[in-house]
């Protein structure tokens, strides 16, 4: 069972300053698959990635990556584990004072003692994989949003990770870039034999490429299944989410006093 899933979350609870974010999360990411975690904004999706990466510690429950308990690792152990992870941040998080080439070379320079020609070849290969070999000399400021995301992707895979995490990879991109990124996620996952986790609220783009979907709401997993199962789901919340309806189980209005009370329509005592 452990040999099959790369990442396992068991009854994970997490709260910020006693404000609960995650409640009883239970997930399993099998090796070699692309998994999506979907949900509305602010439902704690990104927190799940940070728990897996060890940047946050769960309040209760366990997070295991490749059989190791993440919160039980010390500083050195955690950093050793992170070398085998790649993470794509929401807006790329490229180092603004380094060129595209140096950005992708950064993990190689920090973690290996490869000679300069080898680094050059590796970097150009990674950039070629995302279609940006020609942009190696540019600065991050000169890139469009989609290109920056692809450079960040090249950087995330420069050490050939076993687990690639994507934090909102489609946000703020035009439809063509979304298609390119989605395609890359699938292709790179299969080429590297890695496992990928997407945190996203873009239903269409991710439905096409993922193997399994978790839908989160209010810190809980409310539904899971393959894309087909999700699409067929009769659960009203899932239905609302997939079809983007304005009102449903997730209310349009922020919870508060009733409209009658706010506008003084109720009989005053």
């Amino acid at each position, binding site marked *: 069972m452990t040999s099959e899933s790369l990442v396992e979350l068991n009854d994970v609870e997490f709260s910020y300053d006693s404000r609960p974010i995650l409640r009883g999360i239970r997930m399993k990411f099998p090796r070699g698959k692309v998994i999506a975690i979907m949900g509305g904004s602010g439902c704690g999706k990104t927190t799940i990635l940070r728990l897996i*990466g060890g*940047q946050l510690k769960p309040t209760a429950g366990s997070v295991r990556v490749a059989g190791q308990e993440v919160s039980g690792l010390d500083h050195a152990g955690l*950093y*050793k*584990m*992170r*070398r085998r*992870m*790649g*993470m794509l*941040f*929401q*807006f790329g*998080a*490229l*180092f*603004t004072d380094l060129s595209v080439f140096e950005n992708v070379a*950064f*993990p190689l320079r*920090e*973690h290996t003692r490869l000679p300069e020609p080898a680094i050059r070849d590796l970097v150009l290969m990674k950039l070629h994989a995302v279609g940006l070999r020609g942009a190696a000399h540019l600065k991050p400021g000169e890139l469009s949003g989609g290109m920056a995301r692809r450079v*960040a992707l090249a*950087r995330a895979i420069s*050490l050939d990770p076993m687990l690639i995490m994507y934090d909102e990879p489609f946000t703020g991109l035009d439809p063509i870039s979304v298609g390119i990124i989605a395609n890359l996620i699938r292709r790179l996952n299969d080429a590297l034999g890695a496992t990928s986790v997407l945190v996203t609220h873009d239903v269409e783009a991710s439905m096409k490429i993922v193997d399994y979907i978790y839908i989160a709401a209010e810190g809980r997993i409310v539904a899971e299944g393959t894309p087909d199962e999700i699409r067929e789901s009769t659960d009203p919340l899932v239905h609302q989410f997939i079809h983007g309806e304005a009102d449903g189980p997730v209310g349009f209005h922020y919870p508060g006093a009733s409209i009658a009370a706010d506008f003084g329509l109720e009989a005053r005592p």
Partner: protein
Amino acid sequence: MIDAIRQVGAKTVNGIWKFGCATRFSFTMLARSGMCLRRPQLVLDEIYFTGVLSLIIIIVSGLFVGLVLGLQGYETLKRFGSAEALGTLVALSLVRELGPVVAALLFASRAGSAITAKIGIMKSTEQLSAMEMMAVDPHARVIAPIFWGGAISMPLLAAIFSAFGVFGGYLIGVVIIGVDSGAFWSQMQASVDLREDVMNGVIKSVVFGVAVTLIALFEGYDTPATAEGVSYAVTRTVVTSALAVLALDFVMTSFMFTGV
């Protein structure tokens, strides 16, 4: 009324809390400074960033402070018929006080604000987080080198400031007004002591360099992750480090120069 007291209390608790965080931050950074020794190039780059880029403002200000000291000092000393003491006046005020203090204030506004902006932007655009996820410790890779770069640059900048200040005083006093050159230098040398004045000035500038760089780093690291947050943090760096420099200066001066 009660509200005002409550606010003061909350501010105080907040301040102490922040001070504690800053201390922990400093210790973490110092404990992970090992990489700076293994890769001196990192520190070298930061000396460029904090030191070399501050050179122009330090040299020009040093020169002008020296010129003003020379003029004002001459006007005052002339009344007591001891214009030759100009060298002493210029050198002592620069080496003991103005050199370290003014250089530190300029350092805070030039290099300190740049450090805070750099770290703040790296944090708010998740560059620090990304580095962590690439298994590179930002404390060791980014923060510690900046600290050592700043701590090395500041005493050198203060020395350059004082040297150019003395030169400015010489220009006004000797070249333009016509105080005797020999008297200018010999009076200066007779009353400026290597250990008591020059060394104490250097110690001051080292302490200021450490303080300003730490404040700038911490403010940047502690920034809320917004563009607004970064701009507030830069302002806070300049204000806090100016206050810290002046307060530390008072404390150190009372230790160094009032003892027998």
